[in-house]
């Protein structure tokens, strides 16, 4: 090869390298002025309302933070998991590969959390979930635990499951429980976790597991009616709960219907129709509109376009604020964020102190609320 060409190429390569380094320096500096958080949850699909109810909490928290003109602004990106573990396993590597993302607000569902762990663990990306409540996610002995990247600002189903049984049987003398689950990471353990409390309160006359996505629940309705049950507890998500409860009411069942936070979404009454009336629901959440002042609520509506905050807006707001606290302390890398979240002490919107144990649960747990469907709307009733 011609010597002139060789030396020309060498000069060009050296120049490119030098310019590249120089060019990357301001790019890094610019990156420090803006970091990104990702929200992961169902934004479309049968369980979309769960994520759609939560994301305004994150948007509101980030808007309040950015409005203070901080040195480092925060952006939010959305990762739609459809509450589906398979979808989550496909999108999580994409989020992890985005170097701008330093934390994940999510996941909403437990199954998707488990399938996202490998990608986020490998990338050292910290997760704070507003509603993923399956016990195994923070169980040190469980193979699908999320240690050390997973955290959640919601009480796990070890708290919610007995509360669900208590709230379902509230005011019922000699309750006869029929417990059904949807065979998912979330629904199965929730229903199973409710059984010991149900046995303490009354008798369990039957159990069944019906795969999520089943169309026909008539055989279940027949079994429930024949069992003489007067309290039905369902561990599962909104779409299937609506189908099951409709089948039960159409099949002549007149007792109490109850379900957990997977069903406690604002689209449930519309999907279940008349069968939704009187349904008892639980959630480890305090309604956001009960915490905010009228002025704050008006501000929330102005920013998010949502008039009435949905379920787990509060926990999504808290989860986002934990990241924002760390960012305002100058923690701008994934490893710094992880250290900050693992060891820090944070203030919740309700004035509570949030501190995580080694495996990602809030130390001290959180209260579980009881909700009722009245006139087509889910309303907060009392502590479950």
């Amino acid at each position: 090869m011609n010597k002139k060409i060789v030396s020309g190429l060498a000069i060009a390569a050296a120049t490119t390298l030098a310019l590249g380094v120089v060019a990357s320096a301001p790019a890094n500096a610019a990156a420090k002025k803006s970091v990104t958080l990702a929200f992961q949850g169902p934004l479309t699909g049968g369980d979309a309302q769960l994520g759609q109810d939560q994301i305004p909490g994150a948007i509101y928290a980030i808007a309040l933070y950015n409005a203070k003109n901080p040195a480092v602004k925060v952006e939010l990106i959305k990762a739609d998991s459809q509450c589906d573990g398979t979808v989550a396993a496909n999108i999580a590597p994409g989020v992890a590969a985005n170097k701008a993302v330093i934390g994940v607000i999510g996941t909403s569902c437990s199954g998707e959390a488990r399938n996202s762990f490998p990608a986020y663990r490998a990338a050292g990306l910290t997760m704070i979930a507003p509603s993923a409540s399956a016990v195994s996610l923070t169980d040190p002995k469980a193979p699908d635990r999320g240690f050390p990247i997973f955290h959640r600002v919601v009480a796990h189903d070890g708290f919610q499951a007995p509360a669900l049984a208590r709230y379902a049987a509230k005011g019922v003398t000699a309750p006869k429980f029929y417990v059904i689950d949807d065979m998912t990471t979330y629904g199965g353990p929730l229903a199973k976790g409710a059984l010991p409390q149900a046995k303490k309160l009354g008798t369990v006359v039957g159990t069944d597991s019906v795969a999520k996505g089943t169309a026909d629940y008539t055989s279940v309705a027949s079994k429930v009616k024949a069992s003489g049950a007067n309290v039905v507890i369902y561990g599962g998500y909104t779409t299937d709960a609506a189908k099951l409860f409709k089948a039960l009411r159409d099949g002549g069942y007149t007792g109490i219907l109850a379900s957990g936070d997977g069903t406690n979404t604002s689209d449930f009454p519309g999907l279940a129709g008349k069968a939704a009336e009187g349904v008892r629901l639980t959630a480890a959440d305090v309604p956001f509109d009960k915490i905010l002042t009228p002025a704050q609520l008006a501000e929330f509506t102005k920013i998010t376009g949502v008039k009435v905050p949905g379920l787990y807006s509060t926990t999504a707001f808290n989860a986002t604020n934990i990241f924002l606290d760390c960012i305002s302390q100058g923690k701008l890398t994934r490893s710094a964020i992880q250290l900050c979240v693992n060891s820090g002490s944070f203030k919740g919107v309700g004035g509570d102190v949030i501190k995580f144990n080694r495996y990602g649960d809030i130390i001290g747990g959180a209260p579980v609320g009881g909700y009722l469907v009245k006139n087509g709307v889910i309303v907060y009733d009392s502590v479950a």
Partner: protein
Amino acid sequence: MWPLSFGGVATLHNTLHLNRSVDMNFSVITSQFWSLALQGLALGLIYALVSLGYTMVYGVLRLINFANSEVFMFGTFATLYIEVHFLGYDIGAPSLHGFKLVYTLAFALLASMLACAILAIIVELVAYRRLRARGANRLASLISAIGVSIFLLEGMRIITISRPMTTPRLLDKWSFGEFHGANFRIDTVMTIVAPIIIFVVLDQFVNRSRLGKSIRAVSMSEENSKLMGININRVITLTFCIGGLTTGAAAFLYTTVYENTIFNVGFNMGIAAFTAAVLGGIGNLRGAFYGGIALGMLEQFASAMLGSQWKAVTVFTVLVAVLLFKPNGLFGEAVQQTRT
């Protein structure tokens, strides 16, 4: 009721932290027999109607119409569109009565059937005819049908942003009465009577009419049918059209009974209907009918006796067992004589 845990299975459960023991409850056979049989019949006849879309096409083309599940999905959305957007009944609309109820449901039924028939014909034109005319490999048609199926599925996913949708309860679910615990609700009765009428009419059409005879002729021998002057393309289009009409009727019944739909509603229904067709003997009209009923019954009794989690396992165990002894399905032997 008594729990029956198998050693190996129980060990696996413990290892995987699962709780899926088999609770065998044979008492339901006596206590809920009529109730489960009635529900199984109603569910099975919906399967049977959809399975016609598979079995008729297989009869004339010897190919599985994989897009039929999406034709069903399209029918459920057509019913929803007619009731909610065209006729203007919103979700909270009160139930209808008398003549208004009859003509509203009849209109929705016909609209769903028509929409599905048109879509089925389009599927035939796009996925089958052109490839057939060019002498393409049979697998090419199979793949093109899967392609059309995915196109329809994903198209509806985008349009509906994957959200489930509900239909108004236009048909109040009143009951004619009970028989040994079996509740003869209006929607259950309608789901049994309508498919039986459709099957009788279709059976007569295929066996007695000139067009029906031409369908049977093509299913027996395409070459000989051509020599006899039968227009093969017309017969194939007619077959898709009939499959679309019955699938559309099934979609209407499904939407009326369950009052909901979602973009992927056809997936499970397609598997069930295809299973029913294979169980009865694919390519056989009466096989689809009895295969659908058998599947519906099997699902209901398996769910009640073993628990719903064992439904699919039981169904496919029985299917494999049947095929081991009767490889052409329950009515396979009669295929050469009565194929559609």
